[in-house]
């Protein structure tokens, strides 16, 4: 049982880090939309629209690391006895 929690903590840490890195490594807050600017040729005004997109930020990474720490702590707290029972 202890081992399961340690594995879950490791998977959460690595998974969240990979998602965060491959989604652009955004150092700001998580964004769920992208700003798209389009120039109106008659007026010269840059129109702004938002398109749905997910860019995890440091809050996403932080939340995942906190979750991993909780999972690891649960694994640490669990008595070795339950590990033996599981085996």
């Amino acid at each position, binding site marked *: 049982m202890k081992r399961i929690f340690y594995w879950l903590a490791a998977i959460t840490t690595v998974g969240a880090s990979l998602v965060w890195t491959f989604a652009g490594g955004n150092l700001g807050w998580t964004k769920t939309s992208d700003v798209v600017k389009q120039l109106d040729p008659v007026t*010269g005004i840059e129109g702004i629209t938002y398109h749905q997109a997910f860019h995890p930020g440091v809050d996403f990474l932080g939340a995942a690391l906190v979750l991993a720490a909780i999972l690891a702590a649960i694994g640490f707290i669990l008595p070795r006895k339950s590990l033996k029972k599981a085996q």
Partner: protein
Amino acid sequence: MKTNITLNSLLLLLCLPAANLKASPETFDFKDPKGVNNAVFQLDAPLESVNGSANGISGTVNFDPANPGATTGVIDVAAESLTVPNPLQKEHLHGPNWLDVAKYPDIRFEAQSFANVKTDGNITTALVTGPFSLHGVTQTISVPLTLTYLPGRLGDRVPGMHGDLLVIRSQFVLKRGDFNIQKRHYEDKVSNEIHLTLAIAGAAVKP
């Protein structure tokens, strides 16, 4: 008698173009069918930067190309249309602790008087003064404005329509504290200064 009628008709015909030249103010509607009109806001605090925009713009402006200094009008921004890319930030921005958009749904500026009016071709710059309402507080402010009059260009923008366009651009700074928005709170994360950039186009439809 016949000569008199002909002469009168001729005089009337000659007077018509003169009457047209003495133009009256045109009313421009800023409800943009293309959804391009926008106001951009930027708050740059020591710890955080908040950037967003609003596109729920409406209002009317009375503009006389022969006398741009006499321009008057009202521009409204729907507070609910203020958007930032982070959903939690947007929720806080709209919530009761900040803009409280449910209670104060409109942000409004009324152009009442123009000063330092300079016109070069179809571009007019001026300092416009009037009441600005935000978060239930109204303050009289003066902001620099650039008006670009584009006669007969509405059809280029919206096919099938005839009329003129008026483009208004402005950049100015407000202090959220002046409008009782979390006055003197969280200034390390949410700047007291709000940098606003307005770029909007209005249309005066002609038959």
